[in-house]
């Protein structure tokens, strides 16, 4: 999340997966693997980050 600048596009796309810290930068709400039912939303978050700061690994 080093290049996060707080666009919040990830939290808009996947509010179950991404939240906000006190500065408005993104936090990951889920520890470990993303549950299958949220994968679509998480991918959408990845595709909506203007800083390209989200990388979901297989």
């Amino acid at each position, binding site marked *: 999340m080093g290049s996060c600048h707080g666009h919040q596009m990830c939290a808009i796309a996947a509010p179950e997966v991404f939240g*906000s810290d006190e500065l408005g930068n993104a936090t990951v709400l889920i520890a470990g693997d993303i549950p299958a039912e949220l994968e679509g939303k998480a991918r959408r978050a990845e595709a*909506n980050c203007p800083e390209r700061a989200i990388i979901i690994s297989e």
Partner: protein
Amino acid sequence: MTDTRKPVESLLTDYDIFEPSFIANPYPGYSEIRESECPIAHTDRYQGSWLPTRYEDVVALAQEYEVFTSRGILVMPPPPGQAEGAYGGVAAPPITSDPPDHHWHRRLILPVFAPQAVAKYEQGTKDLCNALIDEFIDKGTADAAADYAQHIPVRVISTMLGVPFDMEEEFTDWVRGVLENMHDLERRKRSRQSIIEFFLAQVEDRKKNPRDNDLITELLNTEVEGKKVPIEYVLGVCNLMLVAGIDTTWSAIGSVMWHMAQHPEHRKQLRENDDLWPTAIEELLRVYAPVTMARIVDRDIEFQGCPMKAGDRVLMAFPAANRDPRQFENPDEVILDREHNRHVAFGSGIHRCAGSNLARLEVRVALQTWLERIPEFELVDPASVTWAGGQVHGPRSCMVKF
């Protein structure tokens, strides 16, 4: 008034962001430049500037903050005798700050605008939207820009700053003096002076009478590395909130109202599907991004084949980037559930808009409240809509009937 400006010969070499037809509708011009062999245009007007229009170029500029500095953020040079970024030592941190100071300038204000922090302004915003609608709902007609949009951000910002609502007219006038009428150097100078004098008096008042839950008081008490922050910083943040928080958001709300007046199918979609709102707001911000920031080139550099010189101004046309077909499918179309939307309405990189979560909230609440009360409405006369443009684009008069 007769327009005495010289006609634009070619957008690629002579664009004029203050030309009336460009102000009203800049998108065909952006598109012409973007799709030409020269997607970074240049003009000699207003002492010269560059205008990149492709998404990749605009984002690359925003990321290269050491080369493209924030010493000046307006395309018009300051009036003679005035410093570039600051007036009387007061700038608008962190917008006008460069690293290393930028880091703490931004760090201190971000918590004020985090999503969870701005949520507390939702009900107040809704109440003030309802109060504005009460004024005109029985008339069957209203100016969605001047009677509605224009009053929302200024009141929200006044609430945040703990200053009286009766300053609304002055604030609006000053902000327009700085942002919309920047080519009127006397007005710009006067407006900046008025802003600083007003907040200087507010700061003096808070020093004598500190208040609880008050942003100015909190800023005055903030310490960085064991020392109180300088007064210029406090004044600068107040200046920023006024200049960056009013005209911009009011322009976005106005454009959204203008759009919705012409698109009953989008009103219907939003009425029928609550889940659509988050992506819808982002899509509207993409298409109607109001703000174009400027940068000053730090050193001679070749950027995408353009020979930029130290001191040159570069416009970061976020509205142009947001309609680049290389980045967005059907970029001129509003698709409320757009799947991929890496829009840069709020910029990109270290200077990305600090107040974006507040702006989003205001745009959403303004539209939601209006649609609840006035579900069906249309433009009285599309040709009579007037616009402000240049670096902040949005309608200034937009008569609707219902």
